[in-house]
Structure formats: C-alpha cells, structure tokens
C-alpha cells in the first residue's frame, strides 16, 4: 500500500506551551489510523495544522504527489471537532459551500444528493433551515455528509476529529460503514475519538499522543482496552468500577405533568432529590428538546409544573437559575460559553450575586479564588484561569462548562451529553461530580446518546419516541441491549442480555 500522507517531526507551540513536539505519523491508502490521547494532548492541533488553520513551527507535511497516481491529486477532507459549519446558512448551503464556481447551482439535484447522504444516517431532516436550528447530532451529520461528498477519486485522506460525540449508536454504525467503504476504496482515514471501543472496532492502527508527544504507534491487533488506557494516561489505572447504587430518592424537586412544546408531544416527569434519571431516544425523539423546555429556554406548556415544591409557570432561564436549576447544553460553543471570555469569567457568569461587595462591584480576589478552585477540582488543563475559553481544547472546554454549572450547587441539574469530548480520567471526575451533586440532594436529568453513560450514571432511564415516553427502564430491564432496541421501538427478540 502506498503512503498518502506523511507527517514528519511536526512542532507547534502556543505561548508557554508545546502542543505538538516532533510528532511523526503516516497514513497509507486503505488504512484507518486512530489518533487518541487525553484532553489537550494535541489531537485537534494536529488536525488544524493539516487543514492549514494553524501554521506549524517546524516539520514537514507531505501529501503523496500526483506523479504516483497519474493525474490524481490527493485531497484532504475534514470533519472538525467544532464541525466548521456556518450557523446561519442552511444544511444544503453548507454542504455545497465550497463546490462549484459561477455556474448556477442545480438546487434540485443538490437537494436530492443531500437527502441521500443524510438518509444513510437514519431519518432525513429538513435541509433548508439554518444549521444553527438543527440539533448537535444533526449538525454532525451535515459535517460528515460534507466530508463524504464531492470526491473526484477515491485516494484521498479524510480526517475525523471526534465525529461521534453527539451521535446515537445507529448513526455511529452508519458512519463506520461509510468510513470502512472509503478505506476499502483506497482512502486513508485519520480517526480521533475518546471512545476506546470505537477505536478498537474501527482502526487498523492506533497512535497515542500524550502532552504533545507521540508515545505509541501500534497495530490495533496488539492492543486492548486496558492497554489503551495505560498508553493514554501513562499509568495502568483503569476506569473506576461502578459502585452499587443504593440511592433512596427524596422529595420531588421537579414535577411536571402534560409538558408539551418543541419536540415533546406530552410528557409527565418527576425528578426526586438524590436521583439521577436518564433520557434516551434517537434524533427527533424529543430527547434534545426536553432540557431546554424544562429550563425555560424554549417556550412550553404544561398542565402543572412544580420546581422545588413551588409552582413555576412563567419559565425563563434567569428565573430558572434563581430557583436552583442548572443546564449544561450539548452545544458548548454556541450555547454553553462566551469564547472571548476567560475561563474565570465563564465559570462565574450565571451567578455573580454571591461575589458582590458592598459597593456593588465583583469581589475580584474571591472570584479568582473560586475559579482556581474549580479549575483544580475539574482538572482543567492547562490550569490557566485567565486563558480565553476558545483557546482550551474541546474536552477542557467541556470541563469548564461543567464547573460553571456545578459551582451554584443546583437543586435540579439538567445535563446534555455531559462527557462529550472528555478523556477517560476527566470522565470519571465528571461522573463523580454528578454523583456528588445527587448525593448532596440535587435531582439530575441526563440526556445522552451514549448508552454506556446512561447505564453508568442512572437509576432509571426514560426512553422517548416521537415526543412521548415510550418506556421507562430500571433495575433488571436497564441494559444496553434493551436501551438501544427500545429507542427504535423494536421488540426485544433475545430477551434481556
């Protein structure tokens, strides 16, 4: 097999930090290379250098030259961690942004093609509304479809930076199938993920980065889950075993009947103190809409809505926060953060009242101290309180967002994809923080596309389908197998596994 892309001793430094230290990699035609590593290890930086977003300080990047393949020129296609879609344009416009010249677009053909590409991942959604109105999962699919389309020949390199973080199992399967097909046709694939099972399933070879240094580059056949964790963390500590949960649920913190609005047709829901409840469901099931409805970010109707024992009818975010609700959205770039603010400013934004001095100003010393404590607690790396949010790696942005909402000691905690993009160590830390919050009396709602996550965290899981509750799983019936089947409304053929 011929080498399509070779990276030689690439170095990239940011002020005071070496993000990539003489990293060398190569991808052959037909090969799927996984690049893994902890948050901030330099994976996305590498991708951005390949894409020309950042300039490298030293080193060499070589695409196989046209001479080796006749007239073919190797192209690179990217799915960036932040997707690089233009929010105001429609899915269709985003798909064909870079294609064509002055010739008029054949919109009908483009639309048909777009629907076909998207259809591979399940239900086709409206491709004519602005991307910012799509759910995170749908947006990921648009970015994937864009990268999969418009290949002039098969021998290209495609780079996927954590493409699966907001996707449901079936969509992940569809993506993997597409990727395998590309590789079989001669493409080279670079695949980045924190989900080690996916890595073991998909990749031919695994390269591991740790603090910007490549520490391993081995065929997948010689690796297993435990070994990967060891390579990523540099120690042989594995994921903490799940503790047996004997939580006695307390008083209802949030009780709603007949909730409707957004993608929800009708839902009754009670969350009790100390309880962690999961919400599962495929794209369009109402899973993505539910937290924003409860939080009052999108308007909703309800027959009765009680928050911490008091009726709560006129719902909007400011009031929800005041009454002790917190909402960690899945879309951390658009909804969860102010990129121009520092980590500190982001973390304190929802609750500045407690920092006020007698003159009405913010107590700067107290704010700095609280921010430092949170950065410590949530293992934000690098631990730079005054760094712009946008300059943190994806997983560390997630940690900051989490810190921001747990700081208030909420009584109702609404989580959407809480561990997207975070590495193994931080994931455990976030789980512990969520459990600690529950133990301290919060009611927690976790909406996640990751079945393992729901199993790990939740005592019971509500499966949504077409905007209504399809099923509630708990105890014996709460298995991954059952969860996945239930999301699609399939009957369980084999009994609970």
């Amino acid at each position, binding site marked *: 097999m011929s080498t399509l892309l070779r990276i030689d001793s690439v170095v990239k430094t940011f002020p005071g930090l070496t993000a990539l230290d003489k990293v060398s990699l190569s991808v052959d035609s037909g090969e799927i290379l996984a690049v893994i590593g902890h948050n901030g290890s330099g994976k996305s930086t590498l991708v951005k250098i*390949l894409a020309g977003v950042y300039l490298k300080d030293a080193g060499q990047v070589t695409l196989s030259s046209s001479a080796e393949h006749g007239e073919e020129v190797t192209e690179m296609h990217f799915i960036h961690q932040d997707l690089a879609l*233009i929010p105001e344009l429609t899915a269709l416009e985003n798909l064909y942004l870079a294609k064509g010249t002055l010739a008029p677009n054949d919109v009908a053909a483009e639309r048909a093609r777009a629907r076909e590409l998207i259809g591979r991942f399940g239900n086709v959604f409206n491709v004519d509304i602005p991307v910012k109105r799509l759910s995170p999962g749908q947006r990921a699919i648009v970015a994937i479809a864009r990268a999969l389309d418009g290949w002039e020949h098969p021998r290209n390199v495609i780079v996927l930076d954590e493409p699966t973080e907001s996707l449901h199992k079936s969509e992940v399967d569809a993506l993997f199938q597409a990727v395998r097909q590309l590789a079989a046709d001669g493409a080279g694939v670079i695949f980045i993920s924190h989900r080690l099972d996916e890595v073991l399933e998909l990749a031919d070879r695994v390269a591991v980065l740790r603090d910007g240094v490549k520490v391993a580059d081995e065929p997948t056949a010689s690796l297993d889950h435990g070994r990967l964790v060891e390579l990523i963390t540099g120690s042989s500590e594995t994921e903490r075993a799940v503790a047996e949960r004997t939580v006695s649920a307390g008083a209802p913190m949030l009780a709603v009947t007949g909730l409707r609005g957004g993608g929800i047709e009708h839902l009754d829901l009670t969350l009790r103190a100390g309880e962690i409840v999961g919400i599962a469901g495929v794209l369009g099931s109402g899973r993505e809409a539910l937290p924003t409805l409860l939080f009052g970010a999108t308007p909703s109707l309800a027959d009765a809505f009680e928050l911490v024992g008091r009726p709560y009818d006129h719902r909007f975010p400011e009031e929800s926060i005041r009454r002790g609700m917190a909402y960690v959205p899945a879309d951390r770039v658009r909804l969860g953060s102010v990129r121009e603010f520092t980590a500190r400013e982001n973390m304190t*934004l929802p609750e500045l*009242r407690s920092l006020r001095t007698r003159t009405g*100003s913010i107590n700067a010393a107290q704010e700095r101290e609280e921010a430092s404590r949170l950065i410590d607690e949530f293992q934000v790396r690098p631990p730079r309180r005054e760094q712009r949010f946008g300059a943190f790696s994806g997983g560390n942005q997630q940690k900051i967002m989490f810190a921001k909402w747990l700081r208030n000691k909420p009584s109702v905690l609404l989580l959407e994809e809480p561990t997207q993009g975070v590495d193994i160590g931080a994931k455990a830390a976030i789980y512990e923080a969520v459990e600690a919050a529950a133990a301290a009396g919060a009611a927690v709602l976790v909406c996640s596309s990751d079945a393992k996550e729901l199993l790990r965290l939740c005592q019971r899981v509500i499966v949504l389908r077409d905007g209504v509750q399809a099923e509630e799983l708990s105890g014996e019936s709460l298995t991954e197998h059952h969860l996945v089947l239930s999301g699609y409304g399939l009957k369980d053929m084999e009994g609970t596994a």
Partner: protein
Amino acid sequence: MTTPSTIGGLRQKLSFTNISAIYILIAVLVVFSLWIPNRFLQIGVWRSLLDAESLTSLVALSALIPLVCGALNLAIGTQVGFAAILSAVFLANAKLPIAIQFPLVIIIGAAIGLIIGLLITRVRIDPIIATLGMSSVLLAGMSWVSNSHQILFATDQPDFTKIATTPIFGITIPVFILIAVALVTWFVMERTPVGRRMYAAGYNPESARLAGVNVARLQIGSLVAGGAIAGLAGLLLTSRLNAGDPTVGPSFLLPALTAVFLGSTQFKGGRFNVWGTIISLYVLAVGIKGLQLAGMPSWVNDLFYGLALLFAVGLSRWERSGKRLGAVRRVTTFRSKSKGD
C-alpha cells in the same frame, strides 16, 4: 503549564498591539514638536484641545455603552444634535428656566434611547437598521424644530453658556463632567456584575441568555444610558456654541465611532473599553490639531480619522488573521497540487 510570569505579563501589557495608541501619541508628539515647535507647544493649544474633545468623548461613551451589549448605534450623532436643538428651543421659545430645561433634555435623550431599545429588542429590528431609521427621523425633527437655522437664546438665558465655558483651575466644566461619566461607566462595565453581563450579551447573546443574562433588558438599559449621555452632550454643545446649531451634532458620529473601535484594540485585547476609547480619541485629536497647525487643509481631518481607524484595527487583526484565513480554508476543501503544504 504555569501562569505567565509577571515579566512576560508586563511585556504583553506594554506590547505595541496592546497599547499602540500610546506609542502613536508619543510619535505624533515628537514629530510635531520638532516640526512646528512654536505653534504646537503652546499651553492654549492643549487647553482648547482638552475642552473641545471632552464633548466628542462623551458622545463616544454614549455609543460605547450599547455597543458593548451588541447594539451598534448609528443614530448617536443625531441624538446629540436633536438634544442640542431642544436645549436651545426650550430656552429661547419655551422660556423654560435652566433648572427645568437641563433635566428635561436628559430625560428626552433617555426616552429616545428607550425607543431605539424597544425597536431592537421587542420589534426585533436589527440595531444598525433601527438606529439608521431613528437617525433619519431625528434629523427631520431637528430641521422641523429649528427651521434649519441656528437658535439663539442669549437674550433669554445669558447664563446658560457659562456651563460649558467656565474654567475651574484653567479646565472647563465639560472635562470634569467627562471624567465623572467615564469613571462611572468604567466602574459599571468592568467592576460590576452588570458590566460582566453586558459583555457576555454582546459576545454571545444566546449563551448569555442561558446563563441567566437578560439580554433584552441590558440592551434597552444601555441605550437609555447612552441616550441620557447624548442628551447631556447636546446640552453642553449648545452651551458652548451659545446657540442651538442643527449642523454640528451629526458630525460627531464618525470621530466617536472611530474612537470606540480604535479603543477596542487598546489595553483589553479586543474588548471595547472606556479608557481605550478616550485615549484613542485624544490621540486622534492631537494628530489632527498638529496637522491643522502645520497648515494642512481641513479635509485632512477626515483622511486622518479614516486611515487611523483602518490602520489600528487592521493591526490588531493581524495576529488573528491567521485564524481568519483558516476559517475560510476549513470550509473549503484543502487541495494540494504539489508536495507539502
């Protein structure tokens, strides 16, 4: 993995991109001191400069406050002009005493801000369009009230002109007013929760809202505050000119906005801020004063403002331009025709 050392921090603070206005000021001072020393180095020149630009600075602050919350106000010049005309009309035609006229103009200024705020947040008109429309309406209002003529009030209220022209320790009252307004604005914007929320609302209204920030209320509030300051500037303008002049107010727009944008490149790494705005304004004014004293034609003013804005903002974007280019490249597929990249 540690916080930057204090030396590094200091170097960053004193870097050209961070305080370019100060370096430009020094350069301008040196150039004109050598070129036209006997005209440029006069105490009178500096006093009149300080006084003249204090009004422009007030106008710049009244544009800055809503801009921080994400509302670019293009009506600010006509808001000042309208207030200036009203100030004169209230004295000359309505024969109001100053004690009533003064607060009344400020209240009307605030009310105009309120209307703009409601248009933007409730009717959901884009700020640029809302303020452009309002600007035209106010321009018409000014012509209607003044018949497009100067309005003289000296016979009715000879004292009014003293407000802007009486010196205290050689410095006129508007300068003190500016300092007071700037201090309050600075304190609110950079030291209080309200200010923090204003910046959040301007940067990312959607996530600010989810963090409990009432974006609409902040925008309305900032436009009301900006409107009141514009009213104050209009009063002082009429007091200084000793007449209500319908042509002067609108000409504040360009220098005020120039200073605000220039100011955002100073001190705070891209954030709009009070001291950056005021310093930028005075740097521009010193440059223009020098050119005038050197006998340059008056169109040099506009040229200078324009070039300074393009230069300074372009400069501050320079280091970020790599990223910008990158954003474009990321949506287009990267193609390599030859070896390497």
